[in-house]
């Protein structure tokens, strides 16, 4: 059924975008050496802030901007503790997730019923008529296009620019980077906040485009999927896109199987697969020695940087 395949593909792409934004942001932060487990919390706060501003102004672009800003502000807390004060990144990140979930649930109470703006589908003329790819890729909303454009840009920035080199240096060997004049703290702070901006944008994609409206806990674990996708991608933005799309496909297939009454693969298995595949990739990569050089986790990931020994 080629028609059905295009339908599933369209929903798959739609379902991958929040994870893609968040994973790209987390990837940049981790490349600089900062592990931020607060993605879920930053997404929730971004989703709420985006929707709140949207409900006030009915302007989706402004709303998405507010969602980004809120995610960035949350990330600043993490950056202040881990980069500024050298606190444990795991503890601080987890706290951020708990804080974000509670804060958004509490502040969002009055907004549960509000209606806000929606990023409408913007089919690209010409391209939308392509078979299969037309509905799947080119009949989406602006944020979807943005996410797909951002992926190669981030890849290029990380691997082909001076700034990217400084970011990677901070994450691989902060002491040496520092010795050669890289402002490690500033880089790490900036990358963490950048990660928050994208997590916030991913969250507001949920509340302004994917499932419009504010619902408590509406990210439903997508922040954790994003973190898993960073590992799955072996810290390569292009593979993060592949991972996010895989997540999207698994999500869309759940709905498709349900809508057609097919029980080929139970939904619970499909929900589990992104995590299973992440672990499988890690194990495989380790055993086959694939994890060399670029495909490895940044060597200083999770380690606070300090000039004193």
């Amino acid at each position, binding site marked *: 059924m080629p028609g059905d395949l295009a339908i599933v593909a369209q929903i798959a792409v739609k379902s991958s975008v929040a994870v893609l934004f968040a994973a790209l942001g987390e990837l940049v932060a981790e490349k600089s050496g900062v592990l931020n487990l607060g993605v879920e919390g930053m997404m929730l706060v971004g989703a709420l802030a985006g929707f709140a501003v949207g409900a006030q102004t009915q302007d989706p672009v402004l709303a998405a901007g507010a969602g980004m800003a809120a995610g960035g502000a949350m990330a600043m807390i993490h950056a202040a503790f881990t980069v500024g004060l050298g606190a444990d990144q795991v503890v601080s990140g987890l706290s951020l997730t708990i804080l974000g979930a509670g804060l958004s649930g509490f502040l969002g109470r009055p907004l549960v019923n509000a*209606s806000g703006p929606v990023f409408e589908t913007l089919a690209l003329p010409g391209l939308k008529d392509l078979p299969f790819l037309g509905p799947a890729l080119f009949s989406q909303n602006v944020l979807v296009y943005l996410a797909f454009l951002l992926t190669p840009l981030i890849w290029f920035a990380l691997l082909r620019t001076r700034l990217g080199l400084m970011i990677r240096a901070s994450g691989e060997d902060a002491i040496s980077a520092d010795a050669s004049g890289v402002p490690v703290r500033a880089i790490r702070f900036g990358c963490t906040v950048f990660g928050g901006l994208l997590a916030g944008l991913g969250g507001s994609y949920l509340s302004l485009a994917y499932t419009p409206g504010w619902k408590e806990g509406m990210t439903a674990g997508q922040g954790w999927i994003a973190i898993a996708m960073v590992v799955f991608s072996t810290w390569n933005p292009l593979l993060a896109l592949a991972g996010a799309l895989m997540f999207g496909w698994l999500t869309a297939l759940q709905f498709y199987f349900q809508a057609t009454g097919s029980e080929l693969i139970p939904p619970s298995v499909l929900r589990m697969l992104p995590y299973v595949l992440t672990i499988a990739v890690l194990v495989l990569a380790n055993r086959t020695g694939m994890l060399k050089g670029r495909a490895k986790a940044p060597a200083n990931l999770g380690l606070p940087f300090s000039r004193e020994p």
Partner: protein
Amino acid sequence: MPTRFAALALAVLAILGLLAPGAARAEKVRAAFVLLETIDDQGWTTCHYDGIKKLQQALGDRVEVAYTEGIGSAADAERVIRGYATQDYDIIFGTTFTYMDAMFKVAQDFPKVKFEHCSGYKTRQNMGTYFVRMYQGEYLAGYLAGLMGFKNVGTVATQPLPEVVRGVNAFTIGLLKGLAESRTAHDPAKVNTVVWLKSWRDAVNETTLAQTLAAMGHDLIRQMADTCDSSKAACRMGVPAMGYGADAAEYGADCVLVSTVFDWGSIYIDRVRAILDGTWKAEAVWNGFDKGGVSLSRFNASVPKEAAAKVLAQKDQLAKGRDDIFAGPLSDQSGKVRIAAGQKASDQDLLAMRWFVTGVSGRIPD
């Protein structure tokens, strides 16, 4: 001071109790409600709250109302119900199934207080149950859909329980009747495709399931969840929908042709009035259009006048107590006759219904 007052109150109550055993008319009733979600949840609890408001309007200062929101667990429910019983409320309404055992327990400890439990089956001398025959509304909604020629409906169903199965069946029976009357060509084995949320409300899945159904060519989305997100998603895709619980059109789903609406107010008024009159006794209330409890929202402007008139005529029949929705012959999905010609499903059958009628596509999960 408070203790002395309490002692005095107890003494007065004891004397009253001695003087007027059993049926006593009351001047004023203090009614307490325990609510599942918040009163602005756009669904289940909003409907109950609308009922409370109707009760207050109808009885004015002869009723005093208190309510507690957001009681999701049985343990919480017991604490809250016991609290109201201790404060000498005359009647306590528990508005969701989860509270059944908690209320059953508290009711034993407070024989003077009256308890009403929504959608359960345990009763005591001082504890009744109440529910509404939503399936009658579903039947009318399905009938309207059939009259308008919708022959490939996608239903976003909630929990695979008899209540929901019954609703899907009633909708499908109405749909097939409507399709036959409007002479719409259709596949009689597959007019209503059912997918399950396995939850009473789940905005994200409601939205995406409705989108998937609409994208796959279903011509009408039947919302069954507490929130109207599936209707809203259908509207955004240009597919009409039918709302459930509250009027979905009021919450922004403007493509909704009609919503089947809970109308708890009539039950609340009836129950409290029974205490005022001294006629209250524990009953298993299960009201339909005959005694009030369900209603239809206003029709969308796109609904043809003739179709609306036909639906309202059916509604009048139901209001007169003529409920032949589950009259035989009715077969299940495999074609096996479940209710023979000339027979009718009893209330017991309806309350335990776990099979889909012919015309439904989809399975009931275990």
